[in-house]
């Protein structure tokens, strides 16, 4: 085996899959390590129905990537596995991969490493205001996405919710939890609100927000939702949610009228933010990568995401910063090129 012609990719989400595909198409071997048993990362694990902003089915974006990775001879996939340790030799890395289920240990030699370990959703039960996990019908956007995928949005008692509220920035932009913006939750929540409106046309939907941050072309979601789907926007924050035994009493302030409101909702959806997951923390420890004050992997120069600051190790996707699927795919591609460039240099095929 040519030790200078294989690349380790850690994480099989959008970034990792795209990186694996690109590297394999260059004729390099890929060792793809995924902690979960399924390929596809967050969009597959949480059954994303469609992707913002154009309602493209998730399978249409990730399906071809997953199929390619599964069927390509150059790509070796280790699912349910983590990278346990690594050792840097002169022009290659010795990698030890641990299978979490069978406890089997595999050794590989690679010339470059791409870290694409992604994110986890914020656990809303950390913030006691919303009573997530205690009040029925207070759910996260990830749970709602599963409901939308199944084509049925229902309350815990099987009834169809008529008045639904979305609370933005849960576990985001908040010093007591996570101070960063998750960048996609506004767009994703609005996308979901439109999808609910399509499933339950007579529902009333309220978005309780601080700011709407639908960046770039995602802005059209915001416009569409107001103009074509009659979704209401309330500027303010929610202080408390009570379960009355039948409905949820939401207390908050409408800052545009400078008045507190108390309204009953059938269902509340929390736009939970992104945070670095266990996988990212574990890999940072194993590879000795620099981590910023928020726990995300820290590139050498903040504006150049792929450069980890360590020789031969490249970063891609939401382990560096919160980002959308389209950005993660782009970053995967960028990191793949860097990894190939690095490997070619090591093999003295390139100056």
């Amino acid at each position: 085996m040519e030790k200078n012609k294989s690349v380790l990719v850690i994480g099989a989400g959008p970034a990792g899959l795209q990186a694996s595909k690109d590297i394999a198409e260059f004729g390099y071997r890929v060792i793809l390590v995924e902690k979960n048993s399924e390929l596809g990362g967050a969009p597959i694990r949480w059954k994303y129905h469609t992707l913002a902003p154009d309602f493209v089915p998730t399978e249409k974006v990730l399906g071809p990537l997953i199929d390619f990775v599964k069927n390509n001879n150059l790509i070796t996939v280790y699912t349910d596995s983590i990278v346990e340790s690594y050792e840097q030799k002169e022009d290659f890395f010795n990698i030890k991969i641990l299978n979490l289920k069978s406890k089997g240990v595999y050794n590989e030699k690679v010339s470059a490493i791409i870290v694409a370990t992604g994110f986890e959703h914020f656990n809303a039960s950390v913030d006691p205001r919303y009573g997530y996990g205690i009040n029925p019908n207070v759910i996260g956007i990830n749970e709602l996405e599963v409901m939308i995928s199944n084509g049925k949005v229902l309350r815990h008692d099987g009834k169809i919710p008529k008045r639904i509220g979305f609370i933005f920035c849960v576990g985001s932009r908040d010093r007591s939890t996570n101070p960063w913006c998750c960048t996609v939750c506004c767009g994703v929540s609005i996308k979901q609100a439109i999808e609910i409106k399509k499933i339950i046309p007579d529902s009333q939907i309220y978005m309780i927000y601080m700011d709407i941050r639908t960046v770039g072309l995602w802005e059209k979601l915001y416009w569409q939702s107001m103009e074509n789907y009659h979704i209401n926007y309330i500027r303010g924050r929610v202080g408390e949610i009570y379960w009355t035994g039948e409905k949820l009493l939401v207390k908050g302030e409408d800052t545009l009228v400078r008045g507190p409101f108390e309204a009953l909702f059938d269902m509340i959806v929390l736009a939970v933010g992104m945070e670095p997951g266990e996988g990212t923390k574990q890999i940072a420890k194993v590879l000795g990568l620099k981590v910023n004050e928020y726990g995300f992997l820290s590139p050498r120069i903040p504006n150049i995401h792929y450069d980890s600051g360590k020789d031969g190790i490249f970063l891609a996707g939401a382990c560096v910063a919160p980002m959308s699927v389209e950005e993660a795919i782009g970053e995967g591609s960028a990191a793949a090129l860097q990894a190939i460039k690095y490997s070619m240099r090591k093999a003295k095929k390139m100056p």
Partner: protein
Amino acid sequence: MTENNNEKEERKGKYIIEREYVEDERIIEPEKLDIGGVDASGRWGLIVLPRVIKDFDHSLIDEVKKLPRGKHIERCWQCGLCTSVCPVAHKEPNFNPRYFIYIVKMGYKSEIKKLKKYVYLCQGCGLCSEACPKHVDPSGVMMALNILFDKV
């Protein structure tokens, strides 16, 4: 006579701390109140009604949308450009096109009752409609609201 009335108005709720934040309508101060032989007149019987918005009522916005110049009210995202260019709003603080659109959109009925006497101040100069980034046509909406508030 009018002087007397003014005095009465001033006395209403005068023991409330930070009185300026409480609207007169929300203060109930009975002149004479007898509870089981105990005199609870004046400040002893004082009740301040809560100012909590209890519900959203979208019946009004549907009416506005039916009127030819009110049909784009839903596009409003509350940037406030209409109010900032409005020459009337600079004179009369209770005239605020952005705010009118919002309370109608959310159906805050008590606010509508309070403010409906100001909507007619719109001169129809159209500066707001020219400025509006989302083509809501606020001056048209004001016209539609005038028609509607007559009925409310």
